[in-house]
């Protein structure tokens, strides 16, 4: 699937040749805000929304068994913290979300850098022969 959540319609022989295919889903320089906790059977997940100025997406963090046993191991962040999220794009109840693999706190200039990176990526996608 591509970022627009549609099945791949290109030439199958070039599947995987696009360098972006191997890049992890990256949501850089986003502002972490609002949070809620929903215990789900024995899995506890934290679902938050992040905003980068162009859109809002939900991010889900499944706490590990160790974090459930010892709450002090859990990462907690204040509303407004700027974070970089690496994860997998998925869908839940019709809403797109990112299942977090790693989450790093970043400085304010990282967000600006992220915008510029995305603009650069967009112009690459425009010129790329992989559609």
């Amino acid at each position: 699937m591509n970022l627009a959540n549609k099945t791949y319609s290109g030439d199958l022989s070039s599947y995987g040749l696009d360098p972006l295919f191997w890049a992890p889903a990256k949501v850089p320089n986003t502002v972490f805000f609002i949070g809620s906790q929903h215990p789900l059977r024995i899995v506890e997940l934290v679902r938050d929304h992040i905003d980068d100025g162009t859109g809002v997406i939900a991010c889900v963090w499944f706490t590990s068994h160790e974090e459930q046993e010892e709450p002090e191991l859990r990462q907690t962040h204040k509303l407004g913290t700027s974070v970089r999220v690496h994860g997998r794009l998925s869908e839940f109840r019709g809403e797109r979300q990112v299942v977090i693999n790693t989450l790093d706190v970043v400085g304010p200039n990282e967000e600006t850098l992220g915008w510029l990176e995305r603009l650069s990526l967009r112009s690459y996608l425009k010129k790329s022969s992989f559609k």
Partner: protein
Amino acid sequence: MDLEPGKPVFLEDVVSQGRSLVGQTVRVTGTLHSFNATLDRAILIDNQHLLVIDTSMLGIIKYYFGQTYQFIGVVTPANPPDECQLISDDLRDDSNYTLEVVVKARVARDVDGLDMGVYRKSVVALRAFLDKVPPV
């Protein structure tokens, strides 16, 4: 949850466009000039433009005057008598401001160290790009 993203805008955009932005979620950045705990209002200044921020939804936050802050919130109509008393005569003479709208903030963050020159250029470039690209 239907949340709107905070569109990055400059203080001069809110000051000049005022009422036409009411209801929109914006992200404003500026230097904190003063804070009134009684009225829960903060004053942000950037490039001789001044904006009043309604901080009633933010809870207790330590504010440091002179540091750069970013607020994400909704532009709402102001109550001029309240807003009027926040702005001293010196500020009125030296800066452009609006008493028609305030930004009712839901998120505040200290962005001290942000390169405002690069930030401004990036916002302008981002806006130019988003104007060309249709929304998903």
